[in-house]
């Protein structure tokens, strides 16, 4: 028995040493060899508007990032704010809990910030507290997910989900039309099916395809995660023995989709991505796989939101426009990245 105890002790201490070594060695994510190219996006100062003005404090609240795109939103906002000596950046702890985000925004109202940039977990549910900020005289810059009540924000800036679907639909439709494919098999892999943004994307996609006389053959949702992307794609590939084109809504889950395609050893079709991650752009540039293009939904919108928040707080307008004040709403165009222009977009891509 003693011998067993001793052996056990030895094993345990061995395991402890091993785990200790791992803890110290393996948790590091400092890029030692692999360069992590895409730095957070911040536009360099250019116009008169960028010269230091009245000191302002900008509050920032966004969902917790469990996804490359949202992570890029927070990083871009911070990086942009740092560009200005007259901006004090005040982010609150990111959260996926509606309740917590409401209290976080309330705390920023209490702190009497000069402007608020909010990417709500859900526009409907955060509407009330955004309205409270506006009523307290704090301009709210609504990022991406829109508040239903126009009294709840000064300016909205965000991507064009419908336009994203349209861009993908045109790319696929045109290419198949040019090839002269009749009755093509077109698959669509969505993000979270229940979100309005997903439904907008799908509607834009279907509408654009219709102009070429095509329609979506099958559609499945993959929850925006890599793992789910693999699962859904490998089943879809089984369901359709011959595919002409795939539109995958999201480049993050696209890593999983591409892994499944590679595993199934299929290449008779081409694929279009969505969002515009640096990784997808590198794949497109290399041109070795099925991924040919991606349609953007760029997290650089967070950098722009900070710039706008600063201008509004300082009472300035957009210098390229005639008006003295910043517009009420800015919708970014969804751009199509292909092999030809990937190089130009690569610096704007986000790491998944």
């Amino acid at each position, binding site marked *: 028995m003693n011998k067993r105890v001793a052996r056990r002790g030895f094993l345990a201490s061995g395991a402890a040493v091993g785990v200790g070594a791992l803890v110290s060695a393996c948790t590091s*994510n400092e890029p030692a060899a692999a360069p992590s190219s895409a730095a957070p996006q911040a536009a360099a100062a250019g116009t008169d508007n960028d010269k230091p003005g009245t000191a302002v404090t900008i509050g920032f609240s966004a969902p917790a990032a469990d996804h490359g795109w949202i*992570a890029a939103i927070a990083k871009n906002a911070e990086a942009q704010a740092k560009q200005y000596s007259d901006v004090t950046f005040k982010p609150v702890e990111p959260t996926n809990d509606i309740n917590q985000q409401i209290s976080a925004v309330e705390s920023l109202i209490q702190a009497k910030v000069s402007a608020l940039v909010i990417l709500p977990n859900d526009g409907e549910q955060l509407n009330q507290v955004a309205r409270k900020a506006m009523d307290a005289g704090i301009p709210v810059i609504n990022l991406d997910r829109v508040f239903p009540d126009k009294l709840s924000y000064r300016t909205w800036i965000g991507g064009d989900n419908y336009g994203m679907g349209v861009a993908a639909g045109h790319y696929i439709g045109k290419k198949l039309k040019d090839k002269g494919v009749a009755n093509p098999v077109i698959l669509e892999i969505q993000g979270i099916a229940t979100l309005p943004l997903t439904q907008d994307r799908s509607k834009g996609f279907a509408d654009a395809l219709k102009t070429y006389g095509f329609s979506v053959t099958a559609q*499945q949702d993959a929850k925006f995660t890599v793992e789910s992307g693999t699962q859904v794609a490998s089943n879809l590939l089984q369901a359709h023995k011959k595919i002409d084109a795939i539109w995958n809504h999201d480049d993050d889950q696209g890593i999983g989709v591409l892994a499944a395609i590679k595993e199934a050893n299929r290449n008779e079709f081409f694929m279009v991505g969505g969002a515009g991650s640096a990784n997808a752009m590198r794949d497109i540039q290399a041109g070795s796989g099925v991924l040919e293009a991606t349609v953007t939904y760029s997290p650089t919108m967070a950098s722009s939101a900070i710039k706008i928040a600063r201008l509004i707080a300082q009472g300035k307008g957009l210098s390229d426009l005639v008006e003295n004040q910043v517009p009420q709403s800015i919708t970014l165009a969804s751009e199509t990245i292909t092999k030809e222009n990937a190089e130009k977009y690569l610096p704007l891509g986000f790491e*998944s």
Partner: protein
Amino acid sequence: MTNARGAGTPKDLPKDAPPADEHDRVEHQARAAAPRRTGLLGRVGQAHHLGLAVALVLLAIVGLVTAPGTFATSSNLVSILALAATIGVITVGMTFVIIGGGIDLSVGAIMALASVWATTLATQAYGPVVMAICALLVGTGAGLVNGLLIAYGRMVPFIATLAMLVAARGLAQRMSDRRTQLVRPDNNALVELSTTRVLGLPLLVYIFVLVIAIGWLVLNRTTFGRRTYAVGGNPEAARLAGIDVRRHTLILYALSGLCCGIAAILIMARTTTGSSTHGDLYELDAIAAVIIGGTLLTGGRGTIIGSILGLLIFTLITNLFILNGLNTSDQLIAKGLIIVIAVLLQRRGLRSQVP
């Protein structure tokens, strides 16, 4: 075999009884709680497994009828097995824990943590073998922490593993900075587990089968397995029979953690990534598979084969829904119904066994 639920209740065992006699009696009862070696599948088995097999066949017929050109192809069957492999490995560990009277809610989170830990740039610098070992160690380590909290810290398994679920996901997010970490091209040997095929099957399917085989052997042909049934059926009786219940419990959770580590290797191979979002809600899928497979949540009864059949039913349903272009929501409804039906049938089966 009248006492189908295992060795009697603690009330039957007066504490002041002479130890010698008592020991014999309890030892006998503990053995009785373990499945008999009469059948390949163990005692609970036969009838219930037959039911599950029939369900599988019915689903396959549905597949043949609704998707005639695609369902019965070899590539579809391979794809189903590859999809089942990741959760399957976790389900084997979960079966041990539940038979041993516990529950492990942290499996998905531990797998995510192991996949992230193994794909950090620092770990990747050491190559694919170290990445795999890292995943196994992280999984086992987290399982040991669960086991220590439950066996020696006397925490309720539900709470201890719930805490691990939350904390492990948090740690995975922190470590990965909430990004998806790609397996670097020079570590592609890991991804080849999923892309290399031997006799038409990807290597990861062989790993899955190997884990099932080892799990089955350990549970049915070793003292450790028999003790697992005893500990789950009646821990007090097991303790009186001379089994170190706490140590045994500790090992069960470590085993479950190890399975999560193996699953992490498989998910890295399949998705080419490590991510804090991997394995979301795997704990529920694994528990559901175990329950459908006929394992009692109260412990002391169950089989690995049953769990795997339960899991295959789930995977097959997902496959059938996608082959027929149906949406995810209906899939979830179907899975919910199957859990309820399986448990209702199980209860009827129990009643007919116990007079």
